[in-house]
């Protein structure tokens, strides 16, 4: 017991909490685009993490093979995923808007395997590292915080802020909130639903690109990388109440703190186990998510 309280009041525990907060930034950014698309189009992009994977490859090849500065490569990565977002909507989702949800899931799930398989054929299975590190912020002798994670946190918070202002203040933002409530009457408001869906898919794709840029700084890219953070992204969205962006944002931090605190007392794998157990328990108590809006 004394050991436990010692651990609780240790400086390393503070570091753990801060690292959890920073990991939360990454997870929040991951869930943001998926949540936005779901909230508006009402279709879950199961292949969201695979779009991020392709964004990471774009950045990797442009920077490592073509020698383009990493910040420009990241911009190109975002452009590529924006276009991918548009294509996913126009080529697949567009035809499934009125289809049964299971068919929509199967279609975007199929797309996941298609993208994963294509990446494997095209790029091989080796792990590729961008070789760029932003280093660490040295807070004290014992505490190092990764600049990449800090950047992630700032960008995630910034993106949520920008998106929030856009959704609450602009005409387009109002239309995005409205279309998720009643698609049928949107033409009466003068809204071209096709265009609005494309716009949303483009924003969702761009957010995937931003996530790709930040993940490429921290992790090796390989064709299956989507599998390592795709599922957790869905769980965060579901826990926050699918389509509820603020809920998803908060859920990302709940998840990340659980993971890092679990990792502090045992090891990281146990952290994930803890997070998933809490997730499943939440689903029993509140199947519609912690912050679901009342319908």
């Amino acid at each position, binding site marked *: 017991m004394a050991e436990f309280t010692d651990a609780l009041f240790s400086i390393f525990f503070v570091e753990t909490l801060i690292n959890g907060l920073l990991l939360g930034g990454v997870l929040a950014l991951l869930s943001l685009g998926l949540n936005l698309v779901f909230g508006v189009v009402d279709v879950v992009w199961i292949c969201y993490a695979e779009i991020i994977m392709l964004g990471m490859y774009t950045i990797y090849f442009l920077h490592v093979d073509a020698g383009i500065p990493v910040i420009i490569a990241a911009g190109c990565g975002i452009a590529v995923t924006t276009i991918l977002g548009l294509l996913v909507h126009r080529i697949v989702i567009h035809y499934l808007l009125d289809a049964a949800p299971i068919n929509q899931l199967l279609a975007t799930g199929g797309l996941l395997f298609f993208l994963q398989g294509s990446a494997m054929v095209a790029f091989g299975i080796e792990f590729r590292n961008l070789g760029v590190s932003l280093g660490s912020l040295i807070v004290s002798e014992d505490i190092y915080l990764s600049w990449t994670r800090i950047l992630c946190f700032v960008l995630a918070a910034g993106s949520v802020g920008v998106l929030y202002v856009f959704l609450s203040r602009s*005409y387009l933002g109002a239309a995005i909130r*409205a279309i998720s*409530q009643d698609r049928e009457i949107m033409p*009466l*408001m*003068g*809204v071209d639903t096709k265009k609005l869906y494309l716009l949303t898919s483009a924003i969702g794709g761009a957010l995937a690109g931003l996530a790709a840029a930040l993940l490429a700084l921290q992790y090796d890219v390989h064709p299956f990388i989507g599998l390592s953070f795709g599922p957790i992204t869905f769980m965060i969205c579901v826990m926050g109440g699918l389509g509820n962006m603020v809920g998803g944002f908060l859920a990302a931090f709940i998840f990340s703190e659980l993971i890092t605190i679990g990792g502090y007392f045992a090891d990281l794998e146990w952290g994930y186990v803890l997070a998933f157990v809490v997730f499943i328990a939440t689903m029993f108590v509140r199947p519609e998510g912690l912050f679901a809006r009342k319908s």
Partner: protein
Amino acid sequence: MLTLSQVNAGYGDFQALFDVSLDVRSGEAVAVIGPNGAGKSTLMRVISGMIPAFGGSITMQDVSVLDTPAHQIVGMGIAHVPENRRLFARMTVEDNLRMGCFSPQFRDRYTERLEFVYQLFPRMRERRDQMAGTMSGGEQQMCAIGRALMSDPKILIMDEPSAGLAPVIVQQVFELIERIRGEGLTVLIVEQNVKQVLKVVDRAYILEAGTIRMEGTATELLESADIQKAFMGM
């Protein structure tokens, strides 16, 4: 102003309107009445582009409505207050009103139109920050009509604005329609409250099983024995 000729429409294989012709002149108020399932809402939907027509023609001030993309029809001056109000329940009253002003050509007049709607419905000003779905039925109807008026339409088409409201509120809705008419707006209205609607409109069409059965001035129809028997229980 608004002219329908030989309009056929429906859903998939199902035809709900058969060769419907009707016209509404500028400044007029016209009612469409008929039993449940007659196709009244279908008629409203085809005018505002919510569903496509199978055939026929619809023109608004000599411009073809059927050839205009659905989201541009409101820009021609046709505003539709849909059946059951269809507010955005989880948005505030003011955001709902703002949606009525969405088309870029309306946006610079937003403040002016909002003031107009708030003058017409002071209650909406009081409730501006309330979620639309939490208001009473009568308030929701005001909000739905207000939303349609935000685009400063030439013709307002309303689908059963008094449905589901308490008798006192129904009375208020009809007073409101008279006030809207007073603003010089042209009105096309679907109603089940036949007796009351005939007191506020100039003319009416009787729609039955997707076809126009009868048309006449409000006074003619109010006195018609058939109408009294069929719709007023006399």
